[in-house]
Every structure is written in structure tokens, then in C-alpha cells.
């Protein structure tokens, strides 16, 4: 089950996640009020402290079935004071709602908290993904946590491998969760350091057309959390069939010229598969409706890329059907 809440709204949460019938829901004012009660005092002190900075307290809540019991009896709250962030887990205790997990590691920072619950480990229990906006580009810095029954442990990759330093987990930037290899488990795509365009323009008259880099790092879940795979993705695109006449979407991308594998992950979690579509690469059809007719979960094509390329995708099936398109360097 995929859950997402990016804004603080009990109504939205109810629609997306369902509401609990337990005592957690009985607090007057609902989850928002409960989250306010459990706002970490040290976030307030940290912002004000000696500094007298302007604190902007924010939080987002989500009810999650962490123990896979069929009941969303845990309230996850992601907090920010405008500078630093925190995630807390609240559950109904003998004498009312109680704090059951409050990890201090890793250190999280940013504002505008968001929460997602995703099954990343392939078991029955969801992982919790907490995000905070950071930097002038408004990027989301994400932290993936795994519930261990009593604690939340981070699954983020480590910052570096300096043997002299305490190992420290790093944020994941603008993560996209997608099953890259079609094995039924989601990987994380994170923009590479070259992602986007490397020039900005203050005035229109100074601008020139730019072909973007659309490459990603691929993070795979291992025994010690997510680790960067040796093979990245030169391109990733998510396409969804809209209502009305089919529309072709064209995107430009940079690449190192060579041989690649274009992989189409059809649908999500076995649903919403595309029955008819056409994909062109540099004007050549590389996947057509014949390839989609069998509604295979994964379709692979050998392709060649130039230094600059265009990919055009047109979905023709029922509205709501979707594909992920990934291009990766061929093995040899």
C-alpha cells in the first residue's frame, strides 16, 4: 500500500490513510492536536536558545500500520522548527497516547516536513519516509526509517567511508521510489550530481536552449541500509495515461554515446498496466503496441544513445495506466 501526506490536513489523511478507531483518534482536535502536544521541546529551545532565531514550528502526521496488524494504530509525526527536523512515533498507552520512538539519529534538517509510508524491504511492514525541504532550490531531503517493533532505524546510505570518522548517514535528495529491475522491490532513484542543467539565466535575452542531464544514482537496499549501485540510470521517466486523446510527451536528454538498455516497468505493484503505447528514441520506434499487448511487467530493449537525444512516449490504453521508463548503460 502506498501512502503519502505532504500537507497537514486531517481530512487529507483520512482520505489517504483511513482513520483509526483507537483512542488516538479520540483526542480533541485529532492528530493535529496530538502532534502539537508531542512537539519536541528541544526543537523550540534549539531555535530560540541563545540565538533568538525565528522559530516556525511545523508538523505533518500520518497514521501507519507499522506492525502489520491491520490497524493503523501508530501516529507518525514529522516535525520541523524551520531549521531542524525530527520524527516521532506515538501510540496509545495504558494512560493515553505515549511517545514510543524518538530517534535522535540521524540528524535531520530543513522545513516543510512530509511523510510517506512505503513497503521498501519487501516484507509486510511499511517503511517510513520523512522529507524536509532544504536549500534555495527547495529540494526534498529524505530519510528512510525501518520500524523494529520499538525503534525507528535509518536506512539511508552512509555519507562516506572515512575510517577515522564516525559513520554518518546522509540524506537522500528528491527520491523517486521505483522498481528499477522489476524484481518486485523498490529501489530509490536520486538525481546524480549532473542532473538538470548547469546554467541559469537572469534575463530571457541571455538564455540559450539547453539539453538537460536526466541521470540518476540507483540506491539498493542491502543489509546495512541503502547503498549506491555501481550502475546508475541515464534516464528515468514516469508516464501516466491521461483522460482524453492520447498525448505524446517528448523529453530531451544528454548521454554518453553508446549502447544502453531501455527498460519499461509496466504498471505499479501489478496494477495500472499499459496495453498500448509507442516509445520513440531519436525518432526511431523502440517499443510499439505489439510489445505492450501481452501486458508484461517488464519490457527491455537494446538501444543506442547519442550525446543529445530525445525520447517520445505516447500511452494509448485506459486512463490511469502508467509506465516507468529507465535507460541504463548496457553491461558491456
Amino acid at each position: 500500500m502506498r501512502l503519502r501526506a505532504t500537507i497537514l490536513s486531517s481530512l487529507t489523511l483520512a482520505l489517504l490513510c483511513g482513520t483509526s478507531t483507537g483512542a488516538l483518534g479520540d483526542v480533541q482536535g485529532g492528530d493535529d492536536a496530538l502532534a502539537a502536544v508531542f512537539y519536541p521541546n528541544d526543537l523550540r529551545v534549539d531555535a530560540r536558545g541563545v540565538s533568538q532565531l525565528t522559530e516556525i514550528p511545523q508538523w505533518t502526521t500520518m497514521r501507519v500500520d507499522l506492525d502489520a496488524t491491520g490497524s493503523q494504530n501508530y501516529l507518525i509525526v514529522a516535525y520541523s522548527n524551520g531549521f531542524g527536523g525530527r520524527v516521532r512515533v506515538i501510540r496509545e498507552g495504558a494512560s493515553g497516547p505515549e511517545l514510543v520512538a524518538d530517534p535522535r539519529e540521524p540528524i535531520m534538517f530543513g522545513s516543510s516536513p512530509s511523510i510517506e509510508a512505503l513497503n521498501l524491504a519487501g516484507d509486510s511492514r511499511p517503511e517510513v519516509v520523512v522529507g524536509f525541504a532544504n536549500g534555495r532550490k527547495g529540494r526534498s531531503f529524505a530519510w528512510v526509517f525501518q520500524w523494529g517493533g520499538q525503534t525507528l532505524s535509518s536506512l539511508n546510505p552512509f555519507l562516506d567511508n572515512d575510517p577515522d570518522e564516525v559513520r554518518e548517514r546522509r540524506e537522500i535528495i528528491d527520491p523517486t521510489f521505483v522498481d528499477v529491475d522489476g524484481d518486485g522491490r523498490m529501489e530509490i532513484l536520486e538525481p546524480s550530481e549532473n542532473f538538470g542543467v548547469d546554467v541559469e539565466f537572469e534575463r530571457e535575452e541571455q538564455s540559450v536552449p539547453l539539453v538537460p542531464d536526466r541521470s540518476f544514482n540507483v540506491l539498493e537496499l542491502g543489509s546495512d541500509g541503502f547503498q549506491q549501485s555501481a550502475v546508475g540510470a541515464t534516464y528515468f521517466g514516469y508516464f501516466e495515461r491521461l483522460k482524453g486523446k492520447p498525448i505524446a510527451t517528448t523529453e530531451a536528454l544528454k548521454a554518453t554515446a553508446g549502447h544502453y538498455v531501455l527498460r519499461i516497468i509496466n504498471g505499479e505493484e501489478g496494477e495500472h498496466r499499459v496495453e498500448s503505447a509507442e516509445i520513440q528514441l531519436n525518432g526511431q520506434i523502440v517499443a510499439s503496441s505489439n510489445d505492450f499487448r501481452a501486458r508484461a511487467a517488464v519490457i527491455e530493449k537494446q538501444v543506442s544513445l547519442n550525446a543529445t537525444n530525445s525520447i517520445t512516449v505516447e500511452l494509448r490504453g485506459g486512463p490511469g495506466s502508467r509506465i516507468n521508463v529507465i535507460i541504463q548503460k548496457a553491461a558491456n
Partner: protein
Amino acid sequence: VLLNPSPPEGNVKVTWDFAKTASTPKITVSGVTGSNVIENIYQGEKVFLGSYLTPVKVVATECGGLNRLRTTSAELTIPAPEQSNLQLEAQNLTMNLAAESKAISGSAVVTVPLGTRFSLGLVQVESGVRRELPSEFFLGPLLSLESPLAYPTCYESNVLLEFDENAFAGKQIFQAVHLGSQDVVVFSDEAPRQVVSVEVVRPLRLGNDGNTVTFNNVTYNLDDLLVTWSHKHGMPPQIAKAHVQHESLPFLNVMTYRYEPLSTDYLEFSPRGREQRKEPVYQFTRMEYDSFPRGANLVDAEDVHPRSKFNLDKTTTPKTKISDSEQMVTAKTIYDNNDYWQNWSKFIPSKRAQAIATDPDLELGWPAQTTIAASYGLMQVLYSEAVKFGGGVINGQLRPFYLFDRPEHVGVAGAGSIPTGTAVWASKFRWANGITSGTDSCAPAFKTPEKMDKKIQRASYLYNGAVKYGKDIMQYQLNYLPIPTGPMLP
């Protein structure tokens, strides 16, 4: 008689012999310590204590003006006074300058520019052979600060950072982190205790490019401004200037302005995200939305005007720009008519792009918060950052326009982008070093300069959020290294 260069060790013995007919004979010896004038002694010999700072010069005169000096000479005498063979060696590592040395006998003064990494060490010279003396270095108490520090900052109690502070080595590396002075006490098993007073001063300039800014025919010293605020927030000034290079478009454009409809506005201010436009701290500077009018503190011609660079309609000839009085301009309008040259869509995750393509009116059909969801000035600080860090205030008001580094703004403490930008960087440096509490002191120690550079790079990356940004800053800063005003050992 001129002994030049001055003898590296030992004292100077001067002998003289005036004729008996000389009138008021006088020997003056410069370049030595202590009394250096001998009058009305016709013949003699005296040992002077060499100061080794300047060449030793001996001048013999008499009032008669005739040359009745029969002989005079100067020579090195042996033995040298105690510890006269001990030298302090200092090297500016940031600029990769040659090491300087100077005799030391108990104390010395070293001058370094802010942001400089340098080494100190004791050297013993015996028979022309130089040998580093293994020593232990301790930071003494802070003696002075040029001006008060500002929160957030690091190394609040020092002007120097000492690397690998427990080392017992021939040289020790330091970094000048604030303007002011502080002693370094040096202990060696082979020499008496030495006290080195380090004066951290303003550099002559930061590199050779972009040292001043001119706007509307008024010029100000950018380097001086960067040094002032870098000092307050404990930021290497060359790093601050590297951010200016990365952020200002084109370089040194004080009116640089960037609005982010698909990220900052979408995620933080719009009804599709956190909707922070509702927060009381933004009520006086936000753009109009729903039934709320434009913020009362906004001046259209100044605060709203930066959005006029965007097309309202790109299909007309000429293209129609957004007038300052135009109300309820949506993010969709700005996106549709300007993404082709602003490239916003090339930075966002594919799923957000798909959501926007699926229902653009829902996703972007809200009034664009072009005042509060934007970044300003040479360091491109977000308006929200100025709110949080208390910058950009003039006459009690924080307005977006005040974050532009115009000459009339930077003259007001806290206005322009640099005070906020350096504060934001300092907060990121604290986070990068695991210091999250505003009540905790920030004085991270590093075993090597390279380890500190990794944290500086990470703080710089966190400042912007682009993956490659930190690496770029470490490269750009090489253009703006602090140039010293003179030798380290004056």
C-alpha cells in the same frame, strides 16, 4: 661598516679607533637591541646584542666633519646569547607562500589574514643546520575580537582553529577563523616556553577579481563586506565569495532574483504544499491570494517588480511582461510562459512533472508567491531565510527588496543578502558537524585540514541543495584566497 645580511645568530662586536684630534667622536650601531650609541670614546670595543630584524649597520661620525677615524670594524662574536639560535618559522599554507623565520626569545608576533591556513614551528639552527623542534602547541585565551560575533557562528571563544590539537610535532597547522588576536603557547623539551601572539587581520583583498561592486554609479568594497560578515559567522571569506560567484547572475549582479514555482513555492508556500503563505510572519510581504490582499509592506515598484522579468504572455509580439500591478498571477501562468528559458521543469522529479502535466490547473493554479518564494541578491538568500535569521531589516521592516545588495542597503547592518547568507552557511556548517542545538557551542575539531574541507564542502552543498554545488564552491574559492597585507613575521 654594514653587516648585511644580518648575522643569523650571535652578537656583533664593534671596534673603533678615532684620531685624538677628532671632535665629539660618535659610534652609532643600528639593527641591534639595547643602547646603541657611544659618544666621546676615541678608542674601544663593545659587543651589541643582535636583534636580527634588520641589517646591522655601524656609523662613525665626528663634529669636525673631517675623516679622522683611523679604523673601525664589526664582527660576529661567539658565543651567542642563550637561545639566540632559536627561530620561529611560519608559513602561509593557503597562499602556498615560502616559509618565513625569525629569531624568537620568549615571544613573537605573527600576522595572518582571515581565512588563512598557516603553520607555526620552532627551529633550532646549529652550525648552519636547521632542525625542527618537536613541540606541543596550545591556544591561549582570546585576547581580542575586531567586532562582536553574530549568531549562528562557530569557534566563539577563539580566533584560531588548531588542527590535530594533541599532536607533538615540529609544525602545527592553524586556521584563522575570526578577526582579532590570540596567543599560541609553544612547549618543547629542547627550548624554553614561547608565546606567539597571532593577529588575525583583514586581507588586502579576496583574490584579484570582483573586489568591488558598482551599482547605479556607486561603488563599494565587496571584499570588505564579505570579510566583516564572514568574521561574525566564522565562515572562511573565500568560501563566501565563492558562493557569490555561484549565485549571482551574471557575476556581481546585486539584483539577481530567482523565483522557484515548482519547488520552493509549490512545496512550501502553495496550497499544494505546506501553505506557509498563511504564516503570520509572511502576512506583510506575501502576494495576494484568495481574499487576502497584497502584503501591506510591499512596495510594487521595488518588492513586486523583480517578477516583471517574466512573461505574462509569450505569444504576443513583443512578449507581454508582468506588470507590477497585475493581480493574482498564477504559478501556472508564469510556468507556461517562462519555463522554456528558466528551465524549472528540468530540475523536478518526474512524478511531480507528471502530476503537473496531468492537471496543471490544480497543481499550479494558485497565485504565485513571487515575493516570499524567491531568492535575492549576491548570495541568493531565500526570503524565508532572512525571516528566520533576522536579516534584511531596514527601519524595522523586512522587505524582499532589502535583500538586494544595493549600495544603499549594504550600508545598513543586516541588510543585503550577505549577512543572512553567511548566517545560513554557518547554520549549515553547524549541522554538518552534528551541532543541532542553538544552545550548544560550536567548535568542531579536525585532525587535518582536509577533514575540515570536507565539512566546508558539505555545508556549502547544504546551502544550495544541488548535489554538485559543494564541489563547485571548493573549486571557486581558489579564485578568492585572502591576500596578505605583508609578511607573517613583521
